[in-house]
């Protein structure tokens, strides 16, 4: 019998890097949105990229490697958060304190911008992710629905709620003048 399938050449390191480079920052930003601390987000991103590299033989089968990697990142971070909650570890918040100091220095000029970051931190995870993917990473609704494994209508509902909450809290802060 003749084997008609063409053998996929094994991906080299540089080919892998070419595939991964365009979206590695997006993975990191998503991980940071969920885990808050930069170090944890870096660890998570490395973990996801490593998993992707070990699965490189299957990579040609995925229609969209970026979406797949993003879903992996989401699942990885949510698992992290879950295990942290059950282990009553409050690393997120202690790290956040250090990190926000650095961020405030960085944003001395327009520190009201960092309010938005704090407000986003208070959103439920799903709204956080939808807002991140739409307003920061510019994904379209179908892509978001696919990579968050949600219904497209649910994506719009979550997005609308997230945007409205940010607006509400921002207006509150403006009128009370809390910095």
């Amino acid at each position, binding site marked *: 019998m003749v084997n008609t399938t063409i053998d996929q050449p094994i991906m080299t*390191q540089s080919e*892998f*890097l070419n595939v*991964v*480079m365009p979206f*590695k*920052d997006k*993975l*990191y*930003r998503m991980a*940071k949105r969920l885990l808050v601390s930069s170090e944890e987000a*870096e660890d998570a*991103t*490395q973990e996801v*990229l*490593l998993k992707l*590299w*070990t699965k490189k033989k299957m990579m040609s089968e995925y229609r969209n490697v970026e979406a797949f990697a993003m879903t992996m990142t989401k699942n990885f971070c949510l698992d992290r958060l879950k295990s942290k909650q059950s282990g009553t570890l409050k690393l997120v918040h202690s790290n956040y304190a250090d990190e926000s100091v650095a961020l405030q220095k960085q944003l001395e000029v*327009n520190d*009201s*911008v*960092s*309010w*938005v*970051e704090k407000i986003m931190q208070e959103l439920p995870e799903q709204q956080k992710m939808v807002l991140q993917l739409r*307003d*920061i*990473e*510019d994904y*379209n609704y179908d892509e978001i629905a696919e990579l968050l494994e949600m219904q497209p209508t649910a*994506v*719009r*509902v979550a*997005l*609308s709620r997230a*945007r*409205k909450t*940010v*607006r509400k809290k*921002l*207006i509150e802060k*403006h009128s009370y003048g809390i910095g």
Partner: protein
Amino acid sequence: MELDNIEKLLEKYFEAETTEAEEQILRDYFTGDSVAEHLKEYSTMFSYFSHAKEERFTKQVPLKPRVNYYKWISVAAVAVMVFGIYFGKSYQEQREAEYAYLQTRKALGLLASNLDRGTKKVAYLNEFQETKEKIYKNN
């Protein structure tokens, strides 16, 4: 005219009904310099979004899996153990066989020497037989 349009888009934006192109218009407007006074607070939001997009992953992309290292060590350990048990067992068997051989030799040696002593005694019986036959012949 343009402000009217922006306000309408904002309304759609908060209902999550804007298209990507419309959101781009909003982003351009609010990150620009000519934002209307009563819409100022929205510019915070949009400038944060474009600011957040600048963040980069600066760590190296890992290509050497660390986990496999431990996996191979355990494989090697198991192999060493299996060989150890296998050769250790055959060595043990060899020693046991040698011991059994020595014991058997010793036992056989004992038997042989005892048999030797026995035949010597039987020699006396022979003497008796010969004497007996001499007596019979003489009769």
